[in-house]
Each structure stands twice: as structure tokens, then as C-alpha cells.
């Protein structure tokens, strides 16, 4: 065995026994550093004869390569072990809870209004609005409900002491129908609008609140008949409740501002728990959901249009009730309480935007 072989063996043993990176570095400096044993041997090459160098050169360079390679391999092994140890020490309990963020919601009334807007937009209806603090001309007189009409008393109206510039008594609108008047006064036919909004009646019990929501529909055009009204309501109700097997029943009725007038019942069936579910080709019973009719010629005339030229239909429907029938709430008062538990349960996610392609229910 030559001197270099001895050194090689000794250094490889030192490298293998280095347990830490600093220990390995000490071995490296002792071998390959400026004062290192291998470096010292490399320096002797310069003082050798060519023949000697021929022999010792490859041997000493072989030693250097062998030691360098062993150090690199040992370093990689030690670094890998150190990383494994660090990763092991960084382990956490991934089952720990995270902050879910506050869970916001959209009120069912707003959601249903968006659904209505979407459905009726497809049928060419725009959304109109009007004031809630109305005058009795728009709320009653123009709708063919004169002061002494018994229907005025039936409306349980909230009044203000104030009168407007024309001497009309101010009140809270009892229905969304005054928007019909404002729309006909404000634009030329043809007209197709719905008008959702807050309405008020002095009435409070299990199924009535002094404030509630209605949606009005109005079509004024030439040649519009009761048959168009029937189709519109059928199309709307089937789209809204997302069932094609819904049966409608029109019953002749009376509203001062329509003639002929009809109340509309929708057929329901009962689910396993006995709850009423809208739809079913053979209904177990009927539920009244809206009032409708052909706009009275006097109303059309009151809005400055010629009833011989223009005719159309109107309908009105409770939005809160639509929401209850579709989504299963059973207490109207809870709509206006702001109870977070109720809002989270019956409310809708921000991204539940009704669309025709994605569906108008959520």
C-alpha cells in the first residue's frame, strides 16, 4: 500500500464518520483546505521530475477526486437527513379549525324579486317603481275606487294628515297598483311592466303584517285579451315554481280597476309531511295566489289613453307569499324580524343569482 492509498483510506473513513455538516467541513478543510493533507500532496507534484510526476500525478489527483466525491456524497446525505428532521419537526395538526369568514345572506324577498325580474324580462317586462307614500288619487280614485266605494274601506288604509298640492290626501299605498297609473301616465303604450315593492295595510295577525310586498303586472297594447293574461300567469307560475305540471284555476271576481276580473288559484298536492306543495296535474286542493283582470276602461281613460284603442291586463300578487310557497317558510312575521338564525336558514348566498340558464330557484 502506498502513502496515498493510506491517506485515501483514512480520509474516506473520516468522511464516513462525520455525523454533522460542521464535522464534515472540518474533514474537508483537513484534506482539501490550503493546509490540508491532500493539498500538501498536490503541492509536491511541482518538485517532481517528469517521470516521477507521470507516476504520482494520476495517483494524487485520483486521491483528490475520490475524497471530493466522498465529501459531496456525504454532504448530500447529511443535508437530506437534516431536511427530513426539519420537516418532521414542522408537522402540525391539520384538523385544527380555520376561520370560515362571516356568512352573509340575501333576504328571501329580495331573492324572489330578482327571480321575478328574470322571468318577466324573458317575456319582455321591465321593472317599474313608484312611491310608497302615495296620494289617494293614484292609490284609489284613478283606479276607479271613488271615495265612497266600499272597496276603500276594505283596504285598511294608513293615512297621513298631509295633502298634496292638488288637495289629495296622502297615504301609504295599499297595493302596487298605483304604479300602473304612474306608468301609463309616464309612457306611451305598448307597455309591459312588473312593479314589485313594499305595500301597507292596517292589518296584523298570524298571516297579515302591516307591511308586506306585492308585485304588480301590467300589459297595455292593442288586441291583448283575457287569453293573454291566462297564458302570462301560467307561464310565470310554472317558471317561478319550476314545474310544468302546475294547474291554474281562474275564478270570476271583482276589483274596481279591472273588468272582467279574476282571482287565480293554483293547484297543490301534499308532500309526505302533509305540507302543501304547488303543482301536480291532479291537485289535492286550490290556493289563491293572485288577483287579475282586464284593465278597466275608466282606468285607461284616467291615464289619458283612449280605451277604444288600448286595452290590456293587470295582476297583483303577494311576494312574501310566493316566497313562502316556494321555499317553505310558515311565519310571515319572521320575514321582518331580522333574526340572524332565520336569515341564515332561509336566506340565499350572494352568488345565488337567478338566471335563465342556471335556473331561477336556489
Amino acid at each position, binding site marked *: 500500500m502506498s502513502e496515498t492509498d493510506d491517506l485515501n483510506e483514512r480520509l474516506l473513513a473520516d468522511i464516513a464518520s462525520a455525523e454533522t455538516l460542521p464535522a464534515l467541513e472540518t474533514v474537508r478543510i483537513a484534506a482539501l483546505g490550503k493546509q490540508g493533507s491532500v493539498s500538501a500532496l498536490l503541492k509536491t507534484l511541482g518538485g517532481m521530475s517528469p517521470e516521477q510526476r507521470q507516476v504520482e500525478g494520476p495517483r494524487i489527483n485520483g486521491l483528490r477526486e475520490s475524497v471530493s466525491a466522498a465529501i459531496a456524497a456525504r454532504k448530500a446525505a447529511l443535508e437530506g437527513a437534516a431536511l427530513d428532521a426539519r420537516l418532521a419537526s414542522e408537522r402540525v395538526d391539520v384538523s*385544527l*379549525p380555520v*376561520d370560515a369568514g*362571516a*356568512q*352573509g*345572506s*340575501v333576504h328571501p*324577498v*329580495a331573492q324572489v324579486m330578482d327571480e321575478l*325580474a328574470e322571468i318577466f324580462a*324573458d*317575456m*319582455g317586462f*321591465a*321593472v317599474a317603481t313608484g312611491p*310608497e307614500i302615495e296620494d289617494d288619487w293614484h292609490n284609489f280614485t284613478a283606479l276607479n275606487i*271613488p*271615495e*265612497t*266605494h*266600499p272597496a276603500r*274601506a276594505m283596504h285598511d288604509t*294608513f*293615512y297621513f*294628515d298631509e295633502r298634496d298640492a292638488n288637495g289629495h290626501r296622502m297615504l*301609504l299605498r295599499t297595493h302596487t297598483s298605483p304604479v300602473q297609473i304612474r306608468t301609463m301616465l309616464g309612457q306611451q303604450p305598448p307597455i309591459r311592466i312588473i312593479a314589485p315593492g*313594499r305595500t301597507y295595510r292596517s292589518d296584523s295577525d298570524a298571516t297579515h303584517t302591516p*307591511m308586506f310586498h306585492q308585485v304588480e303586472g301590467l*300589459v297595455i297594447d292593442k288586441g*291583448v*285579451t*283575457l*287569453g*293573454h293574461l*291566462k*297564458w302570462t300567469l301560467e307561464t310565470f307560475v310554472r317558471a317561478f315554481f319550476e314545474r310544468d305540471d302546475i294547474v291554474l284555476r*281562474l*275564478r*270570476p*271576481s271583482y276589483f*274596481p280597476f279591472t273588468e*272582467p*276580473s279574476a*282571482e287565480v288559484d293554483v293547484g297543490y298536492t301534499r308532500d309526505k309531511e302533509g305540507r302543501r306543495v304547488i303543482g301536480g296535474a291532479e291537485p289535492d286542493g286550490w290556493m289563491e295566489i293572485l288577483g287579475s283582470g*282586464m284593465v*278597466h*276602461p275608466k282606468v285607461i281613460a284616467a291615464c289619458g289613453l283612449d280605451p277604444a284603442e288600448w*286595452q290590456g291586463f293587470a295582476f297583483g300578487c303577494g311576494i312574501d307569499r310566493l316566497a313562502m310557497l316556494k321555499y317553505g317558510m310558515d311565519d310571515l312575521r319572521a320575514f*321582518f324580524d*331580522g333574526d*340572524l338564525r332565520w*336569515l341564515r336558514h332561509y*336566506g*340565499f*348566498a*350572494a*352568488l345565488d*343569482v337567478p338566471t*335563465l340558464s342556471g335556473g331561477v330557484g336556489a
Partner: protein
Amino acid sequence: MKLTLGWLKEHLETSATLDEVVVALTRIGLEVEGVDDPAARLAPFTVARVLTAERHPQADKLQVLSVDTGKGAPVQVVCGAPNARAGLVGVFGAPGTYVPGSDITLKVAAIRGVESRGMMCSMRELQLSDEHDGIIELPADTPVGARFADVAGLADPVIDLSITPNRQDCMGVRGIARDLAAAGLGTLKSLNVPAIKASGPCPIDIAIEDEEGCPAFYGRVVRDVANGASPEWMQARLRAVGQRPISALVDITNYVMLDLGRPLHVYDVAKLSGGIVARRGRAGESFVALNGKSYAPTEDMTVIADASGPLGLGGIIGGEASGVSETTTDVLIECAWFTPERIARTGQALGLSTDARQRFERGVDPASLDDGLAIATRLIKELCGGQPSEPVRAGEPPLSTPIIDYDVHAVEVLGGLKVAPDRQRQILRELGFGVDGAWNVRVPTWRRDVDGIADLVEEIVRIEGIDKVPSTPLPRAAGVAHPTATPAQRMERRVRRAAAARGLNEAVTWSFISEAEAAAVGGGRWTLANPISEDLKVMRPSLLPGLLAAAARNLARGAQSVRLFEVGRRYLADGERPTLGLVLVGQRASRDWRAGKPQPFDLFDAKAEALALLAQAGAPADRLQAMPPISEVYHPGRAGTLRLGPKSVLAEFGELHPNMLRAFGIDAPVAVAEIHLDAIPAARAGGRMRDAYRPPLLQPVTRDFAFLVAADVTADALVRAVRGADKTAIVAARLFDRFEGAGVPQGQVSLAVEVTLQPAAKSFTDAEIAAVSDKVVAAAAKVGATLRG
């Protein structure tokens, strides 16, 4: 309006069943609200005879009866009724029978150790009256085993109708019969109007001074009557439809009113002084009405008066003093016609609703005066005896009715339904309309509601069948549906869903609040004259009271963190303002294993929501300035407004004044905001095409500056000044630190700003950056800031 099937058949010749009648009524617009068929309800109850009655071995008050039910062996029944005795014929319910008055279903049971196989019933148990002192006793010869409902004459089902305000004619049984006849359910019987043999002139003068309110007043006296109880058949009908029998004379007026829709009134002649006059009320007058209440008629009301003063309100309610009693011998019958508008106004003014008012204000048939008077006279003669006088006829009822120039195509043009002309003519005639060959249609006197072609279309459609109207699609514009939402509607939808996406829960609260709540936010402009309660009285001038009240309720239920918002209107003097209100109450973040202690909400949370929602609403968020609050509901030092200029306030936000928190009973951190949606400027209309844009090729560089400024200089002012120091190089400036205390002179704060510089074509040189830095320092100096050494 209630009626019985039997009563209906007095006017309608029909073989229709109850079910057929009910279906037809609803189909033609006379909505059936309910049907009560006592025969069906009481069908299981039968007539039974008590054979023996013995003392219960274990109970003094009970007896053990042996009952013959007419079927099989006698049945043992334990009974506690004091009148139970051998030989009594009563009403028996077998095990399995539902007893409506007690809401129980009978079963075989041991009562104090003795088996009982059924029950002998009281009136109350069968819901026939409140009588519960003993069991029902029937005449001894009542057939044992028969159905009780049959022998008791209860077999007449009661139909409850909701009559719409236009159909006065259907507030009497005869009008309903006429409609049903037209609908094909039978034939209307002719009305039997008797010829009255009169003796002598009417001894009471009748005059009309108020022709406007009372155009016609017919009457007559019937002498020597005996006013006892009315016969059982009449009482049974009145009871069935919810009228309390009083005496024969009063019951007759009620019966005729319900039968023909013709209200009447009767006066005791002995209690009248002088003649009768229909006139206006006079100041200072009053009378006590039949309901026991005193009324003071005004000059706008029509009264019936004698020499002593007003006797009653014509067509609404009679007076106590002149009413009939058991001692009445001479009676004056009033059969008048009052102007509907007058009746409505008087009734509204007094808040008084009566059966008579309901009919007169809808318009009683003006041709019914003579018939009504004759029929009432006949009934009085039959039930009370007496001699009728000649009638007196003061004034004339308005008998003329419109003639409508009908277009036979109108049913199809308006109703969308094809009906053959002959069929149209038949329907109209059966409803009482006169139709000539040229389709001039005369409206019958009892159909005051009909005055145009549309009304006739309704009559034909409802009788022919509204279900026959074919469903017809509305014409549809070519192409896909066009968007319909207005910019305001789109903005409202965006802010609502943005708020929900940011973790806020949308509430809907009352538009009206209490006066105290309104006062707390500066007072409301609109106060209801007739609120339903003091809590719901003033139209809200702010969304905060309703939301705070809701938040307080949630805290009371144990909520620790409340984020509520509402999109709705504020009701101000100059209009209804669309607004988004939000309240943040309690903890922004609950205690957490990572974050530690709970974090309370503060004004900056409200500001963050306001800014985010304004940005979603399309407001120019980078141009908004934070300025002091306006409303006194806010903490004066911890609240602000976001404005586009001094006058243009888009939102108000902050923490509330402690007085406000006390007013709403909230003891938790609160931050609120109101966004004035109508104040947000509309986005400029433009195409969908965006401005051209290419991301810069070179990286931006940032430099930090720390300034000392007087404590009253706002961060916003400093950042704006820095941002504006070099409009080309500086693309952003952001405050990232604020410090006061050690090392900062008293009355000053240290504000640190990170400035972002964006190189354009080539990177900045050191000299260029130094030049920009100098500009920044110079700009900051204009707001009094000095670079920190």
C-alpha cells in the same frame, strides 16, 4: 253572506246537489268560503230511549243507563246528566263517534269501574247551543233509531259566500238564485208579491226633506199586531245564517233583507211623536242606536226624525227609543232608498258597519220598494196579525238604468272567448238584462255595478265559463330577451349581493318606527294619522333604528357578532331615498386559537364596508374624501362622511353616540354606515370597449418616507399631497404606519408612507429617484409635514 240550501231552493227550482251548487257558485264568481253541513257533521248521532236509570255503585252523581238505540240489545251508558231518567228520549253517540262540541272521539271505557258503551249528548256537545245543564230531551214520540239531524230539522246545509262589493244583488238569497239559474243550475221561481188589502189611510205622515240622501221613503202602519217570537222555521233559518232571533217584527225585517237584499226598518207607532221625516242631521242632536251607543248625526248625514228629534240614521241603524218590543201593537214599516254615497260617507265617518249599510252603500235595487213593503206586510199579517193601512209613498226612487250599445264581438276582443250571439243573448236575459235586436242592452235595476261593455263581457264570460278562455301566448320580440333593468336597479342588485358576499346578512325591517326612535335620528317627516301601534308610527328617516332594534334582538338571543344590512328607502320631506344601511355589532372576530382575543368592531370596519360597497355601486372610490359626520347620531370624533365634494355626501359611517346606544339598549361595540344610493353619480354611458392597455415592461420601485406632522393634519391630506407630488412617476402612495409617543414631539404624529414609482421606457437613475424624493418632501411640506431625520 250565508244562506242555506233549503232557503236557496225557495227561489231556485233545481235538482242540483249541494256539491254541484258549491262548485257552480265558485265558478261564476260567488266565492264559497265554507260549507257547514250539520247533517254530515251529526250524521252518526241517533235518537235513543233510556229504558232504565240506576245509581252508579261508585259515584253519587253518575247513573248507569240502559239505552234502546233501536238496533239490537240495549246498551249500557254511564251518564252524569241530572235529567237522565227512564223514559227520556234523547240523542245517542256510539263508540267511534266524534263529538264536535267536546273535540273527543268516543270509545268503550270503564267509568269508575262500570263499562260505558257510548254517550247521551247535550246541546253543547253537538255544538247546537251553549246549553250543557243536561242531555237533550226530544218529544217522547220521536222515532228511536232515526238520524238525529233529520228529526231535528238540521239537515239544511249552510253555505258561506264571500260577496264582492259590486254584487249587492247577491246580498239576498234571491239574487244568488238568479245567478245560479243563469249558470244552468235550475230555474228562478217567480217572486210571489201579495196584493195587500188595506184598511184606511196611513196614520203617520212621511215626508222627505233631504231628497239627495233619501230620494224615496215608502211606509205603512199595521195596527193591532202581537209581537211575540217568530215561528221556529224562521228562527232556524236566521240562526243558521248567523242572525240572532229577537222578535217576530224584527226577525221579519231581517228575513226580508237576507231573502231579497231589501233592508227594512220597523217603528213602534206608540213611541213616535208626530210624523216622520227624512232630513239632514242638526248640530246638537243625538240619539241612542239599537247597538246601545249614542250618535250625534252631523249636517252631512241623513237621519229619520220625528217631532222629538232623530230616531235613527237612515239606512244604517235604527234608534232604541222608537224600536219595537213585545208590547208593540201598532207598527210602522219603513221601506226606503238611500243614496249609496251618503250611506258610505256616514258609515265611514262613524266607523259603523251594519247589514243595512253594507247593502245600501252598494246600492239596493231601487225597484224593490213596493214589493219589499208588500212582502213584509204579508209576513207581519201572517205572524203577528193586524190590519195594514194604505201605503204612503214619499219621493221616487231613481229607476232609470243605462242602455249599453253592446258589440257582440266584445267577448272575443276583450275576453279572448268565442261565444255565439244567441248564447250571449240567453245569458244576458237570464241575468235580467233586456236585449233588443240591435244589441241595445238595458241594465236591470238591481245591477248598479254594470255600466259598460266590459261589464257585459264579464257577465258573459263568467256564466259561460272563464275556464273556457284559451291560453294565448303574448307576442314575443325576435331574438333573445333584451335586458330590462335600469341603472339604479342594477346598482341595487350589485350592492346587495356585494354586501352578502362580504359576510353581511340582509334584513327587511319595518318602514315605520316609533316616535322615540325617529327622534333619536333627528325626527321623521311623515307621521301616520292612524298607526296600528305606537311602535309603527313614523316613516323612518334613517335605516339605522330598524337595524339597531334588530341587532339588539339578536344580542338578546345570544348572538356575539351581528352584521346586518338593509336595502330600502328613507322617507324624507322631498322624497323617498334609496339607501343601504348596515350595522356591525359585537365582535368582528371571535376568540381564536391563532388570533387570540376577540376583536371588537370599530369605525374602520364600517368605513371598509362603506368603501367596498361604494366601489361596487360604481362610485369613484379613489376620489372620495373622508370628512366629519353630519348626523348627531354619531360619536362626533369617531365617525365621518365620504364625499365627492363638500355637498355631495355618498355615505356616513362610524361609531354611534353613547346616547344613541342607550336609546336602543345596546351594550356592545357598534359601528354603522348608511350609503345614499341615489347620491352616487351614474356611470357615464359608453360602449363595452375598454381603454387600450399594456402592462409596463419595467418593474416599479418603492420608497418609504416617514413624516412628522401636526396631529390635526389628516392622513388623507398627507397621502394626497404625496401622491400628487409627481403625477407621471408616482402611481401609488399608501400610509403604512402611524405612531405617536416616545421620540415624537407632543402634538405631532409620525406618518409613514410607501410611495410606488413606475418607470416608463427605461429604469430610473439614482438622480431621478432623488429628484422625485425631493418633490415628495416638498409636497408634504405644504401640509406641514417634515421628513423625519
